[in-house]
Every structure is written in structure tokens, then in C-alpha cells.
């Protein structure tokens, strides 16, 4: 095995091709060429059908939304709206709808929540994943509590506290309250990452002359980055779609997209549909950007393993 690698390495140097060959391309080379159609081709068709079916199922709910958002009137037996209109779209894109402000608020809050939650998850996940300490079970239970206890039950109490400290009706207040439901997820994701993490890499970096900060920057951070991205993504999405807590703590002054959306659900389905599409877009963009960390080689639990 090692001899063979030596040979291929040498050839590459002679022909002057630039260096790195990713491991997966190597495997492809070893596969026989797909000249003969056979069971393999059939399997490909099967997979193709499955992908199309999944796309169809995932995208189908959006079709009525699109129709609603551009319809003037759309009544029962017709499949396509009778009359089209750009009313809903021109409304939500206009200044008086407050959509731009809501979008900015949602983005600022969700990004802050994602960054803070990731930072908390990094330390909490490390503690839970790597160390054994007294009361660990209790800490885990407390961390999970926000998933079990309904948000509305605690929000009332928090609101009273936040009014006292001047955090009610402010963006920092909303960010803080959004951290409550996000922390369990980030800590659990990063706890799993650290449970599979080998601290010998950090010791190795130390003896090679890296101080603790540089060990974190050059070794720990790159190793847990995929997991960190996934955790931050969860936190972003939870914050992005949070309604009750934003309403109670933001007091109607901090207006985010879900708040705007709720106003129109029931009263104006066209505007609600257009807003919904607007609301979903960032989530889909983020999902596409981070998808490689959600599964496969680069997944959250990969990286520096204990194997």
C-alpha cells in the first residue's frame, strides 16, 4: 500500500501536477469504469427517482404559497388563481409594510444569537463531552429543561425581570431570551463533537510551541468547526422562527419577521404567503451553504477523532 502511494506521488512530482489529491478522487480512480450497464445503472435510476420524489415532496408546499402571493382572487375549484396581482409583493417591498426593518431585526438578532450560542456551546459542550465532574447529570438536566418547559411559562417571569433591568423592549433583551431555547441544542451538538475529540492533539501542539490561545486557534477550532457551524445554524433557525418570546420581551417594539407574518395570517392570505416565502429564503440559503457539514466526510462528528 505504502509503496504504491510512493510511486503515484513520484509520478505526480515529475509531471509537475500540483500536489494534493483528495482521498475521494483516489477511490474513484480505483473504481472500474462504468461502461457496462447493469445492476449498477439500475441502482442509479432508482436513486434518481428517489431524489426527484424527495424534491417534489419538499417543494410541493411552496407551490400554493407562490400562487397565493401573486393572486388577486383564488377560489376553491380552480387550480390556478383566476386573477393575478402584484399587490402582495409590492406591499411587502414597500416602506410602509416594515418588512425591511423586520428583516434587519430578525437577521441581527439571529446572527447575535447564533454567535453567542456557539461560544456558550463551545465551552459547555467541551465540559460535557470531555470531563467527568460531580453533578454532571444535574447540569445536563438543567440544560435540557428549556426543551421540556414551554417558553411561554417562563417568559412572563422573565419579562418582569427584564422590565426591571431595562432589557424589555430592546434587541439585547430579545437576544438574551432567544438564547434560552437555543443553548440546549448547541451544547448537545458540541457535547457530541467533544465526546469524539482527542485532546492529545492539543498536547502535541503545546509541546511544539503553541501557547493555549494558539492551540485553540490552530488546533481545537479547526477540529470542531464543522460541529460549531451546525450548532450555530440550529441556533440561527430557532431564533429566526421564534414568536412568543419575541412578542413578550420585545413588547411589539422589536418587530421581527414572524411577528409581521402573524399579523397577516388569517386576515390577508396573499401578503402572508409572500411574507412566508420571504421568511423561508434565508433558511434555505443557510442550509445550502452548510449542507456539507450536516452529513458525509466533513460532518460535525468528523475531524479529529479518537479512533
Amino acid at each position, binding site marked *: 500500500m505504502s509503496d504504491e*502511494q510512493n510511486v503515484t506521488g513520484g509520478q505526480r512530482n515529475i509531471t509537475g501536477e500540483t*500536489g494534493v489529491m483528495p482521498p475521494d478522487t483516489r477511490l474513484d480512480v480505483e473504481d472500474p469504469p462504468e461502461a457496462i450497464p447493469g445492476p449498477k445503472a439500475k441502482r442509479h435510476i432508482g436513486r434518481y427517482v428517489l431524489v426527484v420524489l424527495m424534491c417534489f415532496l419538499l417543494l410541493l408546499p411552496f407551490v400554493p404559497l407562490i400562487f397565493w402571493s401573486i393572486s388577486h382572487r383564488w377560489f376553491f375549484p380552480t387550480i390556478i388563481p383566476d386573477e393575478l396581482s402584484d399587490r402582495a409583493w409590492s406591499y411587502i417591498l414597500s416602506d410602509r409594510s416594515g418588512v425591511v426593518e423586520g428583516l434587519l431585526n430578525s437577521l441581527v438578532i439571529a446572527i447575535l444569537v447564533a454567535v453567542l450560542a456557539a461560544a456558550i456551546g463551545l465551552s459547555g459542550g467541551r465540559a460535557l463531552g470531555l470531563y467527568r465532574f460531580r453533578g454532571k447529570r444535574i447540569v445536563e438536566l438543567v440544560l435540557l429543561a428549556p426543551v421540556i418547559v414551554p417558553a411561554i411559562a417562563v417568559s412572563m417571569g422573565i419579562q418582569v425581570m427584564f422590565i426591571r433591568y431595562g432589557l424589555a423592549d430592546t434587541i439585547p433583551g430579545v437576544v438574551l431570551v432567544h438564547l434560552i431555547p437555543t443553548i440546549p441544542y448547541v451544547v448537545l451538538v458540541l457535547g457530541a463533537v467533544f465526546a469524539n475529540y482527542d485532546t*492529545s492533539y492539543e*498536547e*502535541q501542539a503545546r*509541546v*511544539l*510551541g503553541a501557547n493555549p490561545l494558539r492551540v485553540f486557534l*490552530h488546533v481545537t477550532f479547526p477540529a470542531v468547526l464543522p460541529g460549531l457551524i451546525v450548532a450555530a445554524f440550529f441556533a440561527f433557525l430557532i431564533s429566526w422562527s421564534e414568536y412568543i418570546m419575541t412578542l413578550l420581551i420585545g413588547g411589539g417594539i422589536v418587530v421581527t419577521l414572524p411577528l409581521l407574518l402573524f399579523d397577516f395570517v388569517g386576515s390577508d392570505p396573499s401578503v402572508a404567503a409572500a411574507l412566508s416565502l420571504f421568511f423561508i429564503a434565508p433558511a434555505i440559503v443557510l442550509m445550502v451553504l452548510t449542507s456539507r457539514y450536516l452529513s458525509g466526510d466533513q460532518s460535525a462528528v468528523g475531524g479529529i477523532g479518537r479512533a
Partner: protein
Amino acid sequence: MSVTVELVELTKIYKGTTDPSVDGISMTIEKGQLVAMLGPSGCGKTTTMKMLAGLLDPTAGDVRFDGESVIDIPAEKRQVAMVFQKPLLFPHMSIGDNVAFGLRMRGVDKKTRKKRVSEMMELVRLPGMEERRPGQLSGGQEQRISLARALITEPEILLLDEPLSQLDANLRIEMRDLIRQIQAELGITSVFVTHDQEEAVMLADRIALMLAGRIQQDGLPQDFYEQPATQAVARFFGTKNFVPGTVSGMSFESVLGTLQLGHEHPAGEGLLVIRQEAIEIGPGENSFEATVQRTMYLGTHVRVWATAGDVELQFTVPPGVRHEGEQTITLRLPMAQTWVIPVEDRIL
């Protein structure tokens, strides 16, 4: 470039435990020497190593480089390089960047780094592999890269924590020879941790055998075979025959009769240590009678199980010798091969 390393009453008691993992170890490692720290797993050798590297704070005691205490110097400033059991190549960096890591941490410029990396790759016999990724090399190659990465900063001390234990037999020999060669070439003070006594004997200038957190014996490789300090040491080096008896002057009284000793030992009770290959067949000096129980042909030699009085003996003889069934034969133990140890540590 290299220094003398002193461990002074070095002790480590881990939090939550009462028994020390390392129990007051003292030893001196001379400049440029390669010392093997030998012992079974869990005897405290890796803990000692980590205290030397600065990765663990000792509970008590001192570590001195050239007579100066380094106890307050953090790991990254100690000029100690360490190679671990696993290669631990950083997976997100190329091989070249891995090797250059230490220089990068010291702020060495890119051009010098590149030059030094290619020198190190030559040294570990893997030239031109800088652009590869970890995972594209074999286990042995990765361990050699790990060695190159440790040596690139020209450390004063090289610590090797069982670097061969995860390699297969052939690679192990190759890597062992490479380490010995490079160590001699650079003249760097080195400590090699291992649980394999053969590895220790072949590699080291000196061996420190650690059992249960203490150094049992510290000396030249042959001392461990010929003059073990305790029964535990002798057992660790494969000796199976211990005959209780009494030393008086230069002779030893036991069920084997009176044997002449080749070395001076304190008078009184003692255990005669007989290595498997020390016993010869036939009459002569220090001869005694034994009954053969069974034999086993092993190609290069024959193993014989025999009893003498209530003592069981196990020894090896040249392959030409055959014995059928139970029979009484005459054996001898050359005077030079005798060694007596104190009895008190029989529990170990």
C-alpha cells in the same frame, strides 16, 4: 544544544486519588544520552514524561535542565519535543504545514520554514511529501512525519512516548533503527517510553525500569538480565526461576545443594535467580540433580521443565538435546551466571 535532565523526587498524585501515580522519582539523564523508561502500562511512565514536557504539574519534586529548575516554564517554552503513540498529524493541514508547525509558532518566516521542512523530510527519509494530506500516508510514514515535526525546532530534549507501539513488526524495526540513527546524529538528550523490554534493550544507552510509580532499577541494559535488583525486575525481563536459600560467604545453600557464587552478596536469606539460558547440561562446577518433567521443541532451542526438590525449573538447551519421559539428569550453573536477590519483595 542538548542538556542534562534531572528529575528530583518527582511525584504526581492525581486529583481524587490517594495512591501516587509517580512516587518520588529521582534520576539524571546525561547530555546526549538515550534513556529508555520501561514499564507495564499504568506504571506512571507517561505521567513522568508529561511532567518532563510541562504538560502536567507535579504534586511535588523538581525537573531541572542543566541544573536549573524548569517547573514554572510552560510546555510551549520548554524546548522539549514529544512524539506520541499516535502520529497526531493535524488533519486540516498538509504534511508540510504539519512539519512546519513548530517553526510557525516561533515566528520563523515562510521561506526558512520551507527550507527546513525539506531538510527534515530528508532526515526522516520521506522527501517530497510536503503536499500530501494526513491519511494519504501509511501509519509508519505518519509516525516519521511526527518525528520530523518534533525535531524541526531543534529541541534540547526529545521525548518519545511509545512511538512504535501502533506499528506492525517490520515497520517497528525500521522506525526503531531510524530513531536510534537520528538521535545519534543530532546528539539530542532523549527519553524513550516503552513497555517492550526488547525494544528498550536494543535502543537505549540506559534503562530505567518503572513499576508501580517507582524506579525499580536504573542501569545498563545487560544489568537487567544479569544482575536484576529485585524479583519483580527479573520477572519483567523474563526470568522464571527463583530458588530460595541462604548466602554464606561466597556460597549459596538450597535444595540444589551448595553452589559457588560469582559475586558478593550480603549473608543471610536470599533468592537465587536463574535465567532460562544459564543452565547447562552435564556435570562440572556447581552441578546438581534434577528430574525432567517435559520438553518442548522450539526450532532454535528446546525448552525443558524440570524439578529439583520442591523447586520447579524452566530452562532452554540447544536443539540437539532430547529427553524422553521423566528422567533424572545432572545440570550445572556456571559460577559467573549466579545472582542472588533479597527475598522481601516476593509479593510483587
